[in-house]
């Protein structure tokens, strides 16, 4: 996968910021809608939606696929071992209209994420938001940077 050149002009940054803020607002509304209309694709019964978990890891692959994006990160544990976490996100169709692209996370990127973990205790969850290497934040859904 090749990272497309990111335009770092002020205007592009501003647009990106607007898109992200807008994305987070829509995300909050969407979460309310999705959780109240579970049949949209699947219910959230496998996730513990009452517990937020923070992780820091290195992106293995960002899968820009339907019906969900999947972010795979390797997280280094306290004992030095590594665990690969799989994080479900909104679809490319949904995120693509709200400021994301297939290059939002690139292999090797060190990112911080906030997730709702799987109830089973397996290394997976649903993504709430992530902090990119440049410090900017992207919101999958749920509480945005302002909230």
């Amino acid at each position: 996968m090749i990272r497309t050149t990111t335009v770092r002009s002020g205007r592009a940054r501003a647009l990106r910021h607007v898109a992200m803020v807008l994305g987070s607002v829509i995300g909050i509304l969407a979460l309310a809608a999705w959780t109240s209309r579970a049949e949209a694709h699947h219910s959230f019964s496998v996730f513990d939606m009452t517990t937020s978990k923070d992780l820091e890891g290195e992106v293995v692959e960002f899968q820009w696929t339907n019906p969900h994006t999947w972010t795979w990160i390797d997280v280094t544990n306290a004992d030095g071992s590594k665990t690969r976490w799989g994080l479900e996100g909104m679809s490319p169709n949904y995120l693509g209209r709200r400021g994301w692209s297939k290059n939002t996370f690139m292999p090797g990127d060190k990112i911080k994420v906030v997730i709702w973990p799987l109830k089973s205790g397996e290394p997976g969850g649903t993504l709430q938001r992530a902090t990119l290497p440049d410090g900017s934040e992207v919101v999958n859904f749920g509480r945005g940077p302002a909230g």
Partner: protein
Amino acid sequence: MLRHYCRSLAPLAALLAATTAAAQSSPQGDTWESIAKLPELVGLWEVTFGGGPRGAGEPPAFTAPYAARLQEYQAATARGEIEDGPAANCVPNGMPSIMTQPYPIEILLTPGKVSILIEAYSQWRQIFTDGREHPEDPDLTFNGHSIGHWEGDTLVVDTVGFTTDTSLGGGGMRHSDKMRIVERFRLAAPDRLEVETTITDPEALTKPWTRMSAYARHRDWTLAEYVCQQNNRNFTTDDGKSGINLEFEVQQ
């Protein structure tokens, strides 16, 4: 004198009658010329969050056997026995839920037919506006057989022939193959589409169930591909247990 007027008006009356008959035999939307005069339903729309079917509306009034099925489903859900439905396995929702997914739809008008392209699960509906009737014994499908006509600025769509595999919305809300759905599509504003959906079912419902949904126009969007089987890691077992597949496989 009066008789003279009547005689002279007779050809005009005959012409009027003929014109009316012609208008009746040629439904609105049957030619490109008549489509051009219709409200601009053509375009890309996404259901708006809040209000409409997503808000609290009056629940459907089920007959005793269907109310019992719903209660049974809700009790099994409360006991943790049922966690999810078939959509987690990429089975499309069918009507009416397929119309209110959190993805856009695109409406196209061609002579004699209104088509609705539905991004979610890559579905489509075709609504015949050429004056044809439903088949006498329609095949039972997820989205049914639709015929439509215009009443002024409102497109009225009548749909029958549904498989009973689908639900009315929430899990456990079932319907029979006698379900009939009437939708009234109307532009409330140039960029706001409102659809009133009325569901009748002599076996499942004791009275018609009506709800409103609203859609916002997105002129700068295009439909995107949605192949649910591409990387679906969610699943529901036949008895309703849900799960997730965490086995990493490289996609690219």
